[in-house]
Protein backbone atom coordinates (compact mmCIF):
# COMPACT_ATOMS: atom_id res chain seq x y z
CA UNK A 1 0.00 0.00 0.00
CA UNK A 2 1.54 3.31 -0.89
CA UNK A 3 1.42 5.47 2.20
CA UNK A 4 0.41 8.39 0.09
CA UNK A 5 -3.03 6.94 -0.30
CA UNK A 6 -3.65 7.25 3.40
CA UNK A 7 -2.14 10.67 3.76
CA UNK A 8 -3.64 12.26 0.72
CA UNK A 9 -7.31 11.91 0.11
CA UNK A 10 -6.86 11.48 -3.58
CA UNK A 11 -8.79 9.19 -5.87
CA UNK A 12 -8.53 5.55 -4.88
CA UNK A 13 -6.55 3.48 -7.29
CA UNK A 14 -7.97 0.61 -9.33
CA UNK A 15 -11.49 1.55 -8.74
CA UNK A 16 -14.19 -0.36 -10.55
CA UNK A 17 -17.86 0.12 -11.16
CA UNK A 18 -20.40 -1.70 -8.99
CA UNK A 19 -23.81 -2.95 -9.83
CA UNK A 20 -25.70 -1.36 -6.98
CA UNK A 21 -25.28 0.93 -4.06
CA UNK A 22 -27.67 2.20 -1.45
CA UNK A 23 -25.94 5.56 -1.83
CA UNK A 24 -26.59 6.05 -5.54
CA UNK A 25 -29.10 8.83 -6.13
CA UNK A 26 -31.55 8.74 -8.99
CA UNK A 27 -31.94 11.68 -11.30
CA UNK A 28 -35.03 13.80 -10.73
CA UNK A 29 -36.05 16.93 -12.58
CA UNK A 30 -37.07 20.13 -10.87
CA UNK A 31 -40.35 21.08 -12.51
CA UNK A 32 -40.79 24.34 -10.70
CA UNK A 33 -39.52 26.28 -7.75
CA UNK A 34 -41.70 28.65 -5.79
CA UNK A 35 -40.78 30.94 -2.94
CA UNK A 36 -43.00 30.32 0.07
CA UNK A 37 -41.24 32.71 2.42
CA UNK A 38 -37.88 34.43 2.52
CA UNK A 39 -36.34 31.19 3.79
CA UNK A 40 -38.42 28.38 2.31
CA UNK A 41 -38.96 27.28 -1.23
CA UNK A 42 -41.27 24.65 -2.65
CA UNK A 43 -39.83 22.30 -5.24
CA UNK A 44 -41.94 20.24 -7.61
CA UNK A 45 -40.02 17.21 -8.76
CA UNK A 46 -40.42 14.17 -10.90
CA UNK A 47 -38.07 11.27 -11.55
CA UNK A 48 -36.32 11.41 -14.89
CA UNK A 49 -37.73 7.99 -15.72
CA UNK A 50 -41.22 9.14 -14.81
CA UNK A 51 -41.84 6.62 -12.05
CA UNK A 52 -43.82 7.56 -8.96
CA UNK A 53 -41.99 8.02 -5.69
CA UNK A 54 -44.29 5.60 -3.93
CA UNK A 55 -43.99 6.94 -0.43
CA UNK A 56 -46.04 7.02 2.72
CA UNK A 57 -46.90 10.35 4.34
CA UNK A 58 -44.15 11.31 6.77
CA UNK A 59 -41.31 9.69 4.86
CA UNK A 60 -38.33 11.62 3.59
CA UNK A 61 -35.81 11.56 0.75
CA UNK A 62 -32.10 12.31 0.58
CA UNK A 63 -31.62 15.16 -1.87
CA UNK A 64 -28.26 15.35 -3.62
CA UNK A 65 -26.41 17.99 -5.48
CA UNK A 66 -23.37 16.06 -6.57
CA UNK A 67 -20.27 17.97 -5.72
CA UNK A 68 -22.03 19.88 -2.96
CA UNK A 69 -23.59 17.23 -0.77
CA UNK A 70 -26.75 15.56 0.31
CA UNK A 71 -29.38 16.22 2.94
CA UNK A 72 -32.61 14.70 4.22
CA UNK A 73 -35.86 16.47 3.32
CA UNK A 74 -39.40 15.39 4.15
CA UNK A 75 -41.77 14.76 1.34
CA UNK A 76 -44.48 17.38 1.69
CA UNK A 77 -46.93 16.07 -0.88
CA UNK A 78 -49.22 13.10 -0.57
CA UNK A 79 -48.80 9.77 -2.37
CA UNK A 80 -52.38 10.25 -3.48
CA UNK A 81 -51.00 12.81 -5.94
CA UNK A 82 -48.34 10.56 -7.47
CA UNK A 83 -47.41 12.27 -10.75
CA UNK A 84 -44.86 14.36 -9.00
CA UNK A 85 -43.65 14.99 -5.48
CA UNK A 86 -42.95 18.12 -3.56
CA UNK A 87 -40.26 19.21 -1.14
CA UNK A 88 -40.33 22.33 0.98
CA UNK A 89 -36.78 23.34 1.73
CA UNK A 90 -35.51 25.88 4.20
CA UNK A 91 -32.19 27.51 3.43
CA UNK A 92 -30.16 26.35 6.41
CA UNK A 93 -26.66 25.50 5.23
CA UNK A 94 -24.49 24.36 2.37
CA UNK A 95 -26.71 21.98 0.46
CA UNK A 96 -29.97 23.74 1.12
CA UNK A 97 -28.49 27.07 0.02
CA UNK A 98 -27.33 25.46 -3.23
CA UNK A 99 -30.77 23.92 -3.69
CA UNK A 100 -32.29 27.36 -3.38
CA UNK A 101 -30.26 28.46 -6.39
CA UNK A 102 -31.97 25.86 -8.62
CA UNK A 103 -34.58 26.65 -11.24
CA UNK A 104 -37.12 24.68 -13.18
CA UNK A 105 -35.42 22.20 -15.50
CA UNK A 106 -32.43 21.58 -13.22
CA UNK A 107 -31.65 18.08 -12.04
CA UNK A 108 -31.14 16.83 -8.52
CA UNK A 109 -30.36 13.40 -7.13
CA UNK A 110 -32.95 11.66 -4.99
CA UNK A 111 -32.65 8.62 -2.75
CA UNK A 112 -35.79 7.33 -1.21
CA UNK A 113 -38.39 7.28 0.02
CA UNK A 114 -36.61 6.58 3.30
CA UNK A 115 -37.62 6.01 6.87
CA UNK A 116 -40.92 5.09 8.39
CA UNK A 117 -43.82 7.45 7.85
CA UNK A 118 -47.34 7.26 9.16
CA UNK A 119 -48.95 3.88 8.92
CA UNK A 120 -52.11 5.25 7.31
CA UNK A 121 -54.00 1.99 7.59
CA UNK A 122 -53.80 2.45 11.39
CA UNK A 123 -55.37 5.86 10.93
CA UNK A 124 -58.23 4.77 8.74
CA UNK A 125 -61.56 5.12 10.40
CA UNK A 126 -60.23 7.38 13.12
CA UNK A 127 -60.67 11.03 13.98
CA UNK A 128 -57.45 12.79 13.08
CA UNK A 129 -55.83 15.75 14.79
CA UNK A 130 -52.71 17.22 13.22
CA UNK A 131 -50.75 19.87 15.09
CA UNK A 132 -48.01 21.51 13.03
CA UNK A 133 -45.58 24.21 14.04
CA UNK A 134 -43.25 26.17 11.80
CA UNK A 135 -41.50 24.07 9.18
CA UNK A 136 -43.26 21.06 10.66
CA UNK A 137 -46.12 21.89 8.35
CA UNK A 138 -44.01 20.53 5.48
CA UNK A 139 -43.93 16.89 6.60
CA UNK A 140 -47.43 17.30 8.05
CA UNK A 141 -48.73 18.37 4.68
CA UNK A 142 -48.16 14.96 3.14
CA UNK A 143 -50.54 13.55 5.73
CA UNK A 144 -52.97 16.46 5.47
CA UNK A 145 -53.24 16.01 1.74
CA UNK A 146 -53.69 12.33 2.22
CA UNK A 147 -56.54 12.77 4.68
CA UNK A 148 -58.21 15.31 2.42
CA UNK A 149 -57.83 13.11 -0.66
CA UNK A 150 -59.11 10.05 1.19
CA UNK A 151 -61.55 12.01 3.30
CA UNK A 152 -64.20 9.29 3.39
CA UNK A 153 -61.86 6.94 5.23
CA UNK A 154 -61.50 9.21 8.22
CA UNK A 155 -63.73 10.58 10.92
CA UNK A 156 -63.37 14.15 12.07
CA UNK A 157 -60.30 16.02 10.82
CA UNK A 158 -58.83 18.80 12.95
CA UNK A 159 -55.80 20.74 11.84
CA UNK A 160 -53.90 23.24 13.99
CA UNK A 161 -51.03 25.29 12.65
CA UNK A 162 -48.84 27.84 14.36
CA UNK A 163 -46.12 30.03 12.93
CA UNK A 164 -43.89 32.57 14.59
CA UNK A 165 -44.86 35.46 12.36
CA UNK A 166 -47.23 36.02 9.43
CA UNK A 167 -44.26 36.34 7.11
CA UNK A 168 -43.28 32.77 7.95
CA UNK A 169 -46.57 31.15 7.01
CA UNK A 170 -46.00 28.31 4.57
CA UNK A 171 -48.31 27.10 1.80
CA UNK A 172 -50.61 30.12 1.81
CA UNK A 173 -52.81 28.76 -0.96
CA UNK A 174 -53.30 25.58 1.01
CA UNK A 175 -54.11 27.53 4.14
CA UNK A 176 -56.89 29.34 2.28
CA UNK A 177 -58.18 26.12 0.81
CA UNK A 178 -58.19 24.34 4.16
CA UNK A 179 -59.92 27.22 5.81
CA UNK A 180 -62.61 27.14 3.13
CA UNK A 181 -62.93 23.35 3.13
CA UNK A 182 -65.92 22.34 5.28
CA UNK A 183 -64.38 18.89 5.71
CA UNK A 184 -61.39 20.32 7.55
CA UNK A 185 -61.57 21.86 11.00
CA UNK A 186 -58.66 24.21 10.49
CA UNK A 187 -57.24 26.79 12.91
CA UNK A 188 -54.06 28.75 12.82
CA UNK A 189 -52.20 31.32 14.83
CA UNK A 190 -49.01 33.34 14.90
CA UNK A 191 -46.84 34.13 17.90
CA UNK A 192 -46.17 37.72 16.86
CA UNK A 193 -48.61 39.52 14.52
CA UNK A 194 -47.79 42.23 12.03
CA UNK A 195 -50.03 45.15 11.06
CA UNK A 196 -51.99 43.29 8.43
CA UNK A 197 -52.67 40.23 10.55
CA UNK A 198 -56.32 39.65 11.37
CA UNK A 199 -56.10 36.12 12.65
CA UNK A 200 -55.29 34.66 16.02
CA UNK A 201 -52.26 35.51 18.06
CA UNK A 202 -50.62 33.10 20.47
CA UNK A 203 -48.70 29.87 20.59
CA UNK A 204 -50.15 26.84 18.87
CA UNK A 205 -51.43 25.29 22.10
CA UNK A 206 -53.92 28.13 22.46
CA UNK A 207 -55.72 26.66 19.46
CA UNK A 208 -56.79 23.65 21.48
CA UNK A 209 -59.58 25.83 22.85
CA UNK A 210 -61.07 25.88 19.35
CA UNK A 211 -61.41 22.14 19.20
CA UNK A 212 -64.51 20.24 20.05
CA UNK A 213 -64.12 17.59 22.78
CA UNK A 214 -61.94 14.78 21.40
CA UNK A 215 -62.93 11.15 21.68
CA UNK A 216 -59.91 9.41 23.20
CA UNK A 217 -61.07 6.07 21.82
CA UNK A 218 -61.08 7.12 18.22
CA UNK A 219 -58.64 9.98 17.88
CA UNK A 220 -55.12 9.80 16.51
CA UNK A 221 -52.83 12.78 16.84
CA UNK A 222 -49.77 13.81 14.82
CA UNK A 223 -47.54 16.48 16.32
CA UNK A 224 -44.88 17.87 14.01
CA UNK A 225 -42.80 20.88 14.82
CA UNK A 226 -39.75 22.21 16.62
CA UNK A 227 -38.67 20.34 19.78
CA UNK A 228 -39.87 23.14 22.10
CA UNK A 229 -43.38 22.75 20.77
CA UNK A 230 -43.54 19.01 21.42
CA UNK A 231 -43.78 19.05 25.13
CA UNK A 232 -46.50 21.65 25.40
CA UNK A 233 -48.63 20.09 22.70
CA UNK A 234 -48.15 16.68 24.26
CA UNK A 235 -49.44 17.97 27.56
CA UNK A 236 -52.60 19.19 25.86
CA UNK A 237 -53.04 15.91 24.05
CA UNK A 238 -52.37 13.66 27.00
CA UNK A 239 -54.66 15.80 29.14
CA UNK A 240 -57.38 14.77 26.70
CA UNK A 241 -56.62 11.14 27.54
CA UNK A 242 -55.45 10.19 24.07
CA UNK A 243 -53.48 6.92 24.41
CA UNK A 244 -49.73 7.34 23.99
CA UNK A 245 -49.61 4.78 21.22
CA UNK A 246 -51.91 6.92 19.12
CA UNK A 247 -49.93 10.13 19.38
CA UNK A 248 -47.34 10.44 16.60
CA UNK A 249 -44.35 12.72 16.44
CA UNK A 250 -41.63 13.26 13.87
CA UNK A 251 -37.98 13.66 14.89
CA UNK A 252 -35.15 15.47 13.24
CA UNK A 253 -31.50 14.49 13.55
CA UNK A 254 -28.29 14.87 11.63
CA UNK A 255 -28.23 12.29 8.86
CA UNK A 256 -25.61 11.20 6.40
CA UNK A 257 -26.65 7.87 4.96
CA UNK A 258 -30.38 7.64 5.57
CA UNK A 259 -30.17 3.85 5.64
CA UNK A 260 -29.22 3.07 9.22
CA UNK A 261 -25.47 2.77 8.94
CA UNK A 262 -23.69 6.07 9.48
CA UNK A 263 -24.84 6.51 13.06
CA UNK A 264 -25.47 10.24 12.99
CA UNK A 265 -29.20 10.19 13.48
CA UNK A 266 -29.10 7.91 16.49
CA UNK A 267 -31.22 9.03 19.43
CA UNK A 268 -30.24 6.68 22.20
CA UNK A 269 -30.56 3.23 20.70
CA UNK A 270 -32.80 4.27 17.83
CA UNK A 271 -31.75 5.08 14.29
CA UNK A 272 -34.20 7.85 13.43
CA UNK A 273 -33.73 7.35 9.71
CA UNK A 274 -35.05 3.80 9.92
CA UNK A 275 -37.35 3.48 12.88
CA UNK A 276 -38.51 7.05 12.34
CA UNK A 277 -38.70 9.84 11.65
CA UNK A 278 -42.30 9.19 12.76
CA UNK A 279 -42.64 7.68 16.23
CA UNK A 280 -45.48 7.12 18.61
CA UNK A 281 -45.14 9.03 21.81
CA UNK A 282 -45.19 5.69 23.58
CA UNK A 283 -41.94 4.79 21.85
CA UNK A 284 -40.46 8.24 22.04
CA UNK A 285 -40.74 8.65 25.76
CA UNK A 286 -38.25 5.84 26.24
CA UNK A 287 -35.78 7.86 24.19
CA UNK A 288 -34.29 10.19 26.74
CA UNK A 289 -32.31 12.05 24.12
CA UNK A 290 -35.39 12.68 22.03
CA UNK A 291 -37.33 14.47 24.71
CA UNK A 292 -34.65 16.13 26.82
Amino acid at each position, binding site marked *: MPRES*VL*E*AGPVADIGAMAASPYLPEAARVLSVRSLTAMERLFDLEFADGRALGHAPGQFVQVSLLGIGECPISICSSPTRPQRFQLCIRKAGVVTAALHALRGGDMVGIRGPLGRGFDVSELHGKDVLIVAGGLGLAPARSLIQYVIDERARFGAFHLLYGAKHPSELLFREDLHAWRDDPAVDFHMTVDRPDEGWRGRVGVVTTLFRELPPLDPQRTVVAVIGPPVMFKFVLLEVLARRIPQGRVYCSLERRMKCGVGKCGHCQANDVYVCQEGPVFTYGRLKALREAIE
Partner: protein
Amino acid sequence: MKPRIAIFSLTSCEGCSLAILELENELLDLLGAVEIVNFREGMTERSWDIDVGFVDGAVSTPEDEREVTRYRACCKTLVAIGACACLGGVNTLKNRQEMESYRTYVYGERARWFPTTDARPISAVVKVDYELPGCPMNNREFLRLVKCLLAGVPFALPNYAVCVECKKAGNLCLYERGQMCLGPVTRAGCNAICPHYGSKCEACRGLLGAEALAAARLNMREIWKVDEERVLADLRLYGAYQGDGSKP
Protein backbone atom coordinates in the same frame (compact mmCIF):
# COMPACT_ATOMS: atom_id res chain seq x y z
CA MET B 1 -14.61 34.99 -15.64
CA LYS B 2 -11.78 33.25 -13.86
CA PRO B 3 -11.22 34.58 -10.37
CA ARG B 4 -8.19 36.84 -10.08
CA ILE B 5 -5.83 35.52 -7.45
CA ALA B 6 -2.94 37.15 -5.63
CA ILE B 7 -0.40 35.69 -3.24
CA PHE B 8 1.36 37.98 -0.77
CA SER B 9 3.97 37.57 1.90
CA LEU B 10 4.54 39.40 5.15
CA THR B 11 6.95 38.28 7.89
CA SER B 12 7.41 34.62 7.09
CA CYS B 13 9.59 31.99 5.53
CA GLU B 14 7.33 32.06 2.47
CA GLY B 15 6.99 28.33 2.77
CA CYS B 16 3.24 28.66 2.36
CA SER B 17 3.58 30.48 -0.97
CA LEU B 18 6.06 27.83 -1.93
CA ALA B 19 3.60 25.15 -0.91
CA ILE B 20 1.34 26.42 -3.69
CA LEU B 21 4.13 25.85 -6.20
CA GLU B 22 4.51 22.39 -4.71
CA LEU B 23 1.11 21.42 -6.03
CA GLU B 24 3.02 20.18 -9.05
CA ASN B 25 0.38 17.70 -10.20
CA GLU B 26 -2.45 20.20 -10.03
CA LEU B 27 -0.58 23.40 -10.78
CA LEU B 28 -1.42 23.56 -14.46
CA ASP B 29 -5.08 22.78 -13.74
CA LEU B 30 -5.05 25.48 -11.11
CA LEU B 31 -3.59 27.95 -13.57
CA GLY B 32 -6.38 26.95 -15.91
CA ALA B 33 -9.08 27.58 -13.32
CA VAL B 34 -7.85 30.86 -11.86
CA GLU B 35 -5.85 33.81 -13.07
CA ILE B 36 -2.85 34.60 -10.91
CA VAL B 37 -2.37 38.32 -11.16
CA ASN B 38 0.08 39.08 -8.38
CA PHE B 39 2.63 36.61 -6.98
CA ARG B 40 6.07 37.94 -6.27
CA GLU B 41 7.70 34.57 -5.86
CA GLY B 42 6.49 33.34 -9.19
CA MET B 43 6.10 36.28 -11.54
CA THR B 44 7.16 39.79 -12.51
CA GLU B 45 3.92 41.33 -13.76
CA ARG B 46 1.36 42.36 -11.16
CA SER B 47 -2.09 43.82 -10.79
CA TRP B 48 -4.10 45.14 -7.88
CA ASP B 49 -7.56 44.22 -9.09
CA ILE B 50 -7.95 41.04 -7.06
CA ASP B 51 -10.78 38.67 -6.22
CA VAL B 52 -8.98 36.46 -3.75
CA GLY B 53 -5.78 37.39 -1.97
CA PHE B 54 -3.77 34.82 -0.05
CA VAL B 55 -1.39 36.19 2.53
CA ASP B 56 1.33 34.31 4.30
CA GLY B 57 3.31 35.80 7.15
CA ALA B 58 2.65 37.57 10.40
CA VAL B 59 2.31 41.27 10.93
CA SER B 60 5.48 42.23 12.76
CA THR B 61 6.53 45.66 11.53
CA PRO B 62 4.79 48.95 10.82
CA GLU B 63 5.44 48.24 7.14
CA ASP B 64 3.60 44.87 7.42
CA GLU B 65 0.65 46.72 8.89
CA ARG B 66 0.47 49.11 5.96
CA GLU B 67 0.87 46.27 3.48
CA VAL B 68 -1.86 44.08 4.91
CA THR B 69 -4.24 47.03 5.04
CA ARG B 70 -3.56 47.54 1.36
CA TYR B 71 -4.18 43.88 0.60
CA ARG B 72 -7.48 44.02 2.41
CA ALA B 73 -8.51 47.05 0.39
CA CYS B 74 -7.58 45.40 -2.92
CA CYS B 75 -8.97 41.91 -2.37
CA LYS B 76 -12.63 40.99 -2.30
CA THR B 77 -11.79 37.88 -0.29
CA LEU B 78 -8.76 37.74 1.94
CA VAL B 79 -7.33 34.41 3.08
CA ALA B 80 -4.65 34.02 5.73
CA ILE B 81 -2.39 31.09 4.91
CA GLY B 82 -0.05 29.40 7.32
CA ALA B 83 0.58 29.53 11.03
CA CYS B 84 2.25 32.95 10.77
CA ALA B 85 -0.73 34.63 9.14
CA CYS B 86 -3.34 32.76 11.19
CA LEU B 87 -1.69 32.57 14.60
CA GLY B 88 1.42 34.68 14.43
CA GLY B 89 3.66 31.68 13.95
CA VAL B 90 7.15 31.16 15.34
CA ASN B 91 7.58 34.92 15.11
CA THR B 92 5.48 35.29 18.25
CA LEU B 93 8.24 33.69 20.31
CA LYS B 94 9.87 37.09 20.32
CA ASN B 95 6.78 38.63 21.91
CA ARG B 96 7.73 36.78 25.05
CA GLN B 97 11.02 38.62 25.33
CA GLU B 98 11.75 42.28 25.99
CA MET B 99 11.74 44.10 22.67
CA GLU B 100 14.94 45.95 23.46
CA SER B 101 16.69 42.75 24.32
CA TYR B 102 15.75 40.80 21.22
CA ARG B 103 16.49 43.71 18.93
CA THR B 104 19.93 44.49 20.25
CA TYR B 105 20.83 40.81 20.43
CA VAL B 106 20.64 40.68 16.66
CA TYR B 107 21.43 44.19 15.47
CA GLY B 108 23.37 45.66 18.38
CA GLU B 109 23.17 49.43 18.79
CA ARG B 110 21.97 49.76 15.22
CA ALA B 111 18.72 48.04 16.11
CA ARG B 112 16.80 51.30 15.67
CA TRP B 113 17.35 51.03 11.93
CA PHE B 114 14.94 48.11 11.83
CA PRO B 115 11.55 48.98 13.33
CA THR B 116 9.56 46.09 14.70
CA THR B 117 6.37 45.40 16.64
CA ASP B 118 4.92 42.37 18.38
CA ALA B 119 4.21 39.61 15.88
CA ARG B 120 0.48 39.18 15.34
CA PRO B 121 -1.84 37.19 13.10
CA ILE B 122 -3.22 39.30 10.29
CA SER B 123 -6.71 39.04 11.75
CA ALA B 124 -5.40 41.30 14.52
CA VAL B 125 -5.14 44.08 11.94
CA VAL B 126 -7.71 43.43 9.22
CA LYS B 127 -10.79 41.32 8.70
CA VAL B 128 -9.92 37.90 7.33
CA ASP B 129 -12.43 35.79 5.42
CA TYR B 130 -10.79 32.38 5.67
CA GLU B 131 -7.82 30.92 7.48
CA LEU B 132 -5.67 27.99 6.42
CA PRO B 133 -3.43 27.39 9.41
CA GLY B 134 -0.42 25.07 9.55
CA CYS B 135 3.32 25.48 9.31
CA PRO B 136 3.39 25.27 6.40
CA MET B 137 -0.23 25.25 5.36
CA ASN B 138 -1.45 22.00 3.82
CA ASN B 139 -1.62 22.63 0.10
CA ARG B 140 -4.35 19.99 -0.30
CA GLU B 141 -6.45 22.07 2.02
CA PHE B 142 -5.56 25.15 -0.02
CA LEU B 143 -6.83 23.34 -3.08
CA ARG B 144 -10.02 22.42 -1.28
CA LEU B 145 -10.61 26.05 -0.37
CA VAL B 146 -9.97 27.16 -3.95
CA LYS B 147 -12.53 24.62 -5.16
CA CYS B 148 -15.06 25.81 -2.62
CA LEU B 149 -14.54 29.38 -3.80
CA LEU B 150 -14.89 28.30 -7.42
CA ALA B 151 -18.03 26.29 -6.67
CA GLY B 152 -19.43 29.07 -4.52
CA VAL B 153 -19.89 26.99 -1.40
CA PRO B 154 -18.65 27.88 2.07
CA PHE B 155 -15.38 26.42 3.30
CA ALA B 156 -14.83 25.23 6.83
CA LEU B 157 -11.83 23.81 8.65
CA PRO B 158 -12.23 20.43 10.29
CA ASN B 159 -13.61 20.85 13.76
CA TYR B 160 -11.91 17.89 15.35
CA ALA B 161 -8.52 16.91 16.68
CA VAL B 162 -5.41 15.82 14.82
CA CYS B 163 -5.84 12.42 16.51
CA VAL B 164 -8.71 11.67 14.14
CA GLU B 165 -6.48 11.93 11.10
CA CYS B 166 -3.67 10.24 12.97
CA LYS B 167 -5.85 7.18 13.49
CA LYS B 168 -7.03 7.21 9.91
CA ALA B 169 -3.41 7.21 8.83
CA GLY B 170 -2.78 4.15 10.99
CA ASN B 171 0.00 5.66 13.09
CA LEU B 172 1.27 4.38 16.40
CA CYS B 173 0.26 7.02 18.92
CA LEU B 174 3.24 8.96 20.17
CA TYR B 175 2.08 8.61 23.75
CA GLU B 176 3.08 5.00 23.29
CA ARG B 177 6.50 6.32 22.33
CA GLY B 178 6.74 8.50 25.42
CA GLN B 179 5.96 11.83 23.81
CA MET B 180 3.41 14.40 24.92
CA CYS B 181 1.89 14.93 21.52
CA LEU B 182 -0.38 17.96 21.13
CA GLY B 183 -2.63 16.21 18.64
CA PRO B 184 -5.56 15.89 21.06
CA VAL B 185 -5.89 19.67 21.45
CA THR B 186 -5.00 20.69 17.90
CA ARG B 187 -7.30 21.27 14.94
CA ALA B 188 -6.95 18.62 12.26
CA GLY B 189 -6.44 19.22 8.56
CA CYS B 190 -2.77 18.26 8.16
CA ASN B 191 -3.45 14.52 7.98
CA ALA B 192 -1.45 14.24 11.19
CA ILE B 193 1.69 14.47 9.17
CA CYS B 194 4.01 14.96 12.15
CA PRO B 195 2.89 11.89 14.11
CA HIS B 196 2.91 10.00 10.83
CA TYR B 197 6.61 10.71 10.61
CA GLY B 198 7.21 9.94 14.24
CA SER B 199 7.25 13.48 15.60
CA LYS B 200 4.83 14.89 18.11
CA CYS B 201 2.24 17.40 16.95
CA GLU B 202 3.26 20.92 17.90
CA ALA B 203 -0.11 22.54 17.36
CA CYS B 204 0.86 24.53 14.29
CA ARG B 205 -2.79 24.48 13.20
CA GLY B 206 -3.98 26.13 16.37
CA LEU B 207 -5.95 25.02 19.37
CA LEU B 208 -9.19 23.18 18.92
CA GLY B 209 -11.08 24.61 21.83
CA ALA B 210 -11.17 25.55 25.46
CA GLU B 211 -12.59 22.21 26.62
CA ALA B 212 -9.78 20.22 25.12
CA LEU B 213 -7.29 22.62 26.66
CA ALA B 214 -8.89 22.25 30.07
CA ALA B 215 -8.75 18.47 29.70
CA ALA B 216 -5.09 18.78 28.75
CA ARG B 217 -4.30 20.73 31.90
CA LEU B 218 -5.96 18.10 34.02
CA ASN B 219 -4.39 15.16 32.23
CA MET B 220 -0.89 16.59 32.14
CA ARG B 221 -0.95 17.06 35.90
CA GLU B 222 -2.91 14.04 37.03
CA ILE B 223 -2.19 11.38 34.46
CA TRP B 224 1.17 12.18 32.97
CA LYS B 225 2.57 14.03 35.98
CA VAL B 226 4.33 16.61 33.89
CA ASP B 227 4.50 20.34 34.30
CA GLU B 228 1.51 21.79 32.47
CA GLU B 229 3.48 24.97 31.83
CA ARG B 230 5.85 22.88 29.76
CA VAL B 231 2.94 21.81 27.64
CA LEU B 232 1.72 25.36 27.25
CA ALA B 233 5.21 26.38 26.17
CA ASP B 234 4.89 23.91 23.33
CA LEU B 235 1.57 25.44 22.42
CA ARG B 236 3.32 28.77 22.02
CA LEU B 237 5.74 27.54 19.40
CA TYR B 238 3.49 28.60 16.53
CA GLY B 239 1.47 31.13 18.44
CA ALA B 240 -1.40 28.72 19.01
CA TYR B 241 -1.65 29.89 22.57
CA GLN B 242 -0.40 33.25 23.65
CA GLY B 243 -1.58 32.88 27.20
CA ASP B 244 -2.81 36.47 27.26
CA GLY B 245 -6.16 35.86 25.65
CA SER B 246 -5.13 37.52 22.40
CA LYS B 247 -5.83 34.39 20.43
CA PRO B 248 -6.37 31.20 22.38
